[in-house]
């Protein structure tokens, strides 16, 4: 049963104002094209989460789409602090988002708990830090502390997260939504499986037969998936292993632009609002930086070996 739709349809049908959204990626396979479409559609009041957020989250915060952020970290990597994130929290521009803060261990564990139907999980980090002293919109349920009934040790328990929708970008998926990745995983599988439904955006749609030739690569099964969008270069300016490199040049442009509110707004206008879809985005990229610049991003040829599942 094909679930293939356009990005416009996927976002308008499955992401509503006020939704709790998991956005996959870790520089690797960020669903940038989906985030741009969320911005174009003017969706508001989102609760967003992922470990190690980057420029994509910064932009969502900058346009005012985010109300709440279950976070561990937000930065622009080599380009330093997230400018929109800072403006929001330091100056309330465009508004002050609410942040519930965890770590790159505890937050993935909370998504894993959600994915596995566990009500909560113990975590060995957080203890002794001021992260336990601050509680935001999750209140008392940010965490609970118990003495372990096994050995009496003080133990921090963190609750399961179950986002309304998870959006991930993967290398390939079939029309039904069976989604395959390789390379750096981040919290992509647990985040998607924790979500009530999943939007899969992918570099290429492949046949169910191709999926079946290597089923151990599948991270989300079709029945969890509500929409499939074929979106080549969908993670740019992030990267997708085997497809294209990270684009430090555009990252630098974003940092420079987002130093000021005006610069940020001009960047969003140029790269998001004035472009109807990712095809237009790529064309704009080629116009700005030349086909040579676009071509340079493409992955070199470096294939591995096939395996057999036969008996």
């Amino acid at each position, binding site marked *: 049963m094909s679930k293939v739709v356009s990005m416009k349809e996927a976002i308008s049908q499955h992401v509503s104002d006020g939704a709790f959204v998991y956005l996959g990626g*870790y*520089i*690797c396979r960020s669903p940038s094209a989906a985030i741009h479409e969320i911005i174009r559609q003017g969706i508001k009041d989102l609760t967003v989460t992922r*470990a*190690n957020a980057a420029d994509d989250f910064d932009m969502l915060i900058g346009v005012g789409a985010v109300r709440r952020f279950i*976070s*561990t*970290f*937000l*930065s622009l*990597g*080599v380009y330093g*602090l*997230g400018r929109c*994130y*800072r403006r929001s*929290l*330091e100056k309330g521009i465009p508004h002050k988002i609410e942040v519930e*803060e*965890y*770590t*790159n*261990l*505890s937050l*993935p*564990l909370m998504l*894993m708990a959600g994915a596995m139907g566990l009500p909560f999980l113990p*975590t*060995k*980090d*957080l*203890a*002794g*830090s*001021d*992260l336990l002293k*601050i509680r935001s919109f999750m209140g008392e349920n940010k965490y609970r502390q118990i003495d372990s009934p096994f050995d009496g*040790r*003080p*133990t*921090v328990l963190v609750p399961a997260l179950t986002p309304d929708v998870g959006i991930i970008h993967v290398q390939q998926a079939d029309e039904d939504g069976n989604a395959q990745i*390789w*390379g*750096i*995983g*981040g*919290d*992509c*599988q*647990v985040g998607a499986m924790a979500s009530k439904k999943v939007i899969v955006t992918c570099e290429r749609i492949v046949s169910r037969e191709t999926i079946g030739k290597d089923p151990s690569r599948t991270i989300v099964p079709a029945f969890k998936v509500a929409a499939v969008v074929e979106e080549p270069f969908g993670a740019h300016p992030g*990267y997708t*292993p085997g497809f294209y*490199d*990270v684009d*430090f040049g555009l990252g630098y442009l974003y940092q420079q632009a987002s130093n000021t509110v005006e610069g940020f707004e001009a960047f969003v206008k140029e790269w998001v609002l004035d472009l109807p879809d990712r095809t237009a985005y790529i064309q704009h990229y080629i116009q700005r930086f030349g086909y040579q610049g676009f071509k340079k991003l493409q992955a070199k040829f*470096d294939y591995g070996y096939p395996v057999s599942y036969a008996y």
Partner: protein
Amino acid sequence: MSDAKEYIKPELMACCGAREISDHDVVIVGTGFPAMAANIAKYTHAPHATMVQESGVIDARPLRPALSVGDPCLNPGAAMIGGLVDVMGMLLQAGNINVGFLSGSQVDKFGNINTTCIGPYEAPKSRLPGSGGANPIGSLARKILIIALHDRRRLAEKVDFITTPGYIDGPGAREKCGLPAGTGPSVIITNKAVLRFDPETCEAYLATYHPDCTIEEIRANTPWDLKVAPDVHPTEPPTAEELRVLHEVLDPHRMIRIYEQRGYV
């Protein structure tokens, strides 16, 4: 090839980090300094050390310097790639990580680290990125190496916010709140000195001073009453072998000079 005895401060600091790594250690590295330190160790006295990135990569073989822990160059050739729950859970939380590197906008005398905010949390003067992997690494790696700029703003009597616990408020505090035994910061490597932690007081003290620095200068730039080890002595300069590896193998273009621009002089 450059003069084998010539070195800059960031290279000395990287060598100080490398010397804390033992053969067969599993080291969780980020980019820059920690990666350089771990690589120096691997190419000298610790050939069986394994480097790990929190994003999910184990024993990467990058062909260019990784600019983030999720850099594309970490994928091809790695020994294993999973995700955050694999590295932060199965490796770090399960006690398999021997060494972790941390840095922060503020580091205090108990080795607590702040990467959350300068000023009050609710109305920050400066909002920083947050914990990311720092808190779990500082909580759970067997040995923590802290890299810091040595001045009265980066070092602190008490950090504004404990993102990552060092010895918190002193002896016994880690154990009391449930952190695993035998963990905690081991050393603060600054651009002026190497500080270690007194097992009695859990306070950082001056262990060695870098060749061009004086004890007085270091104490003046430390915002707490810095104790000095009875056997305090100059930091061992990079050995010929360490410099050879740095200059010929790991960093022929001396990209480490960017740290000098950031004040690591």
